[in-house]
């Protein structure tokens, strides 16, 4: 079904079951953040895993999605689902422009252009104290009422809302990969010139993937704004861009479940390492190094390789 392999279907069922049970045993806000970042990472995974482009500027979409989503709910008093949609559209709109500029470049040059473009967004966010709140950020964002009816204040309500969006995003990303479009993207990754010589407008394919990734990042950003009730400069910052790359890698580039697992690990790290206080940076660094030297395929990737499955 849906182009899942049998192992993937089993994984999907397991994932849904765990996510349904999780808020009763774990911390709902933590879980919601994991899902937000997993959405964000799924976009980055499309770029990195399926067209082989490393973006160092994904936070621009995430952060601006958050600001616009937050603004819509806080200042325009729109309902939360509209906020999330607007966040996604904002991400996509910026993605249209950035993608148009960046997509013609490869490898490290692509990475650097995305970094540079994200720097402008960052610059804007620091400047504009009216809209973004500068370095104070946007504070106390209300969660509002879903469709104007169901209050999302209680964590479990928001959790259900987040879960639905996450699953929709998950299936959407999966469908993109396993569509005729996805086949072409795979071909482009394998041999770009050949794809061109067959008459494929390679740049447009890359552009669309880029926009989809930006769209997912925007959704994730807006959702995250509702979950944490704040949007700040960290959300548009380079560190966030680096973190999403880390999530994809830790989870496993080009795997279906990698982004979720990667997000869970990295967010858990931020939460639980905090109590190591002085050693946070050192431990994070060691984890990066260990990832590269020991778990190159990421957790899901290594696991799948052990079991000889595609996950």
């Amino acid at each position: 079904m849906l182009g899942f392999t049998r192992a993937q279907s089993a994984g999907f069922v397991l994932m849904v079951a765990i996510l349904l049970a999780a808020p009763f045993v774990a911390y709902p806000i933590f879980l919601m953040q994991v899902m937000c970042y997993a959405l964000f990472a799924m976009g980055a995974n499309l770029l990195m895993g399926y067209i082989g482009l490393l973006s160092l500027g994904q936070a621009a979409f995430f952060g601006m999605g958050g600001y616009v989503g937050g603004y819509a709910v806080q200042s325009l008093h729109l309902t939360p689902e509209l906020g999330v949609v607007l966040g996604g559209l904002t991400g996509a709109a910026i993605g249209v422009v950035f993608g148009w500029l960046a997509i013609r470049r490869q490898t490290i040059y692509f990475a650097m252009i995305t970094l540079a473009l994200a720097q402008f967004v960052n610059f804007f966010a620091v400047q504009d104290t009216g809209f973004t709140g500068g370095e104070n950020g946007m504070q106390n964002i209300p969660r509002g009422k879903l469709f104007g009816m169901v209050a999302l204040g209680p964590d479990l309500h928001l959790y259900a809302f987040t879960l639905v969006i996450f699953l929709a995003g998950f299936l959407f990303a999966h469908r993109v990969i396993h569509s005729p479009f996805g086949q072409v993207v795979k071909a482009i990754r394998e041999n770009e010139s050949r794809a061109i010589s067959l008459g494929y407008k390679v740049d447009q394919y890359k552009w669309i993937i880029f926009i989809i990734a930006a769209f997912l990042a925007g959704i994730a950003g807006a959702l995250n704004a509702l979950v944490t009730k704040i949007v700040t400069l960290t959300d548009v910052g380079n560190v966030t861009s680096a973190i999403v790359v880390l999530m994809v890698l830790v989870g496993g580039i080009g795997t279906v479940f990698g982004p979720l697992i990667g997000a869970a690990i990295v967010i858990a790290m931020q939460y639980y390492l905090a109590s190591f206080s002085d050693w946070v940076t050192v431990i994070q660094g060691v984890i990066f190094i260990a990832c590269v030297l020991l778990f190159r395929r990421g957790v899901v990737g290594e696991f799948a390789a052990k079991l000889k499955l595609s996950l």
Partner: protein
Amino acid sequence: ASFPLTRARAAGKSLKIAVISDFSGPYRDDGGPTSVACVKQAVADFGAKQKGYDVTVLKGDHQNKPDVGVGLARQFYDQGVDLVIDVPNTAVALAIQGVAHDKNRAFIDSGAAGSSLTGKFCNAQSIHWTYDTYMLAQSTGGAMVKAGGKTWFFITANYAFGHLLHDQTAAVVKQHGGKVLGNVNYPFPQTTDFSSFLIQAQSSGAQVLGLANAGADTVNSVKQAHQFGLNKKMKIAGLLVFLNDVHGMGLEIAQDLILTESFYWNLNDRTRAFTKRVLPRTPNNYPSMGQAGCYSGTLHFLKTVHEMNNMKAAANGAELVAAMKKMPTDDDAFGKAYIRADGRFMCDAFLFRVKKPGESKIPWDYYTLLETTPAAKAFMPMAIEGCPLVKA
């Protein structure tokens, strides 16, 4: 409903205090381990054991990320933490202040500068200890103009904190009859070289160079001003400088810098006594005002809880903070002071000049007191702060 992580209190009177601070980044020396030491010192000085309290001190590194700070604070509060304290970095502080309100638990910020903490973002659960941008501006700006520094040039970190510091100081300068000759907003972070701005300052002919920045930026600006010989022609006013920054610059370079703190370890017998007690816990770093604020805040919190003598009421952030506001404070670090209705801790502000290398007799003996601005004049009047608590 989610796990009702209600506090499973033992029959005894147990209290939990969490220090959320920067332990690994640029503000580590202004908060971090030394703040934890100060909190623990307060617990000891209060005599928690003797009075039958079981006090646990926890710590968490917010890594200067508001969302991490929010996550930490939420978790701490859900684990039954009664007080979150310190939190340098205004963005993180604001975010945690929101959480404190949602969870109805007490929050004392000692490390952050933004005066908006007791302004439009104030709430019934939060207190802002130690200092804020307005107070720095009043003390440094006002006192310097009075001492003859009439014309100013600012170098401002281009973000909200820098702007606030600049705007408030510039206003004070003008109010006292001084003049602002120029200002540059430099990109923050990512600026390490200030020479260009220093040259611009020099060619403006101003008498005072106001540095509306903090941390490494201030150290860099002062160090480089020294190289260009600016300190020979202008007075340099660091609008937010901590003792640790001066230590990092060295007296050779920092000498004659003018700055404001609300605590200095070598100010009087009481501060010296406090410092002597706390130093064994923090061997390489003398406490500066933010850290002393953690001591003072914790002590006052403990005293209030004791005074209330009702653990259930004390667990209610709004009630507890209201009680803290009612009771005047008194401790070795800040002497006698009080907390205003908007949550502002009212202490005196001291204007210091950094000693020349020859004047410094003992380790960390860095400041000479120039002026004292009484609390009532140092802090922004409640009427103009826009705190909803006050209007109500």
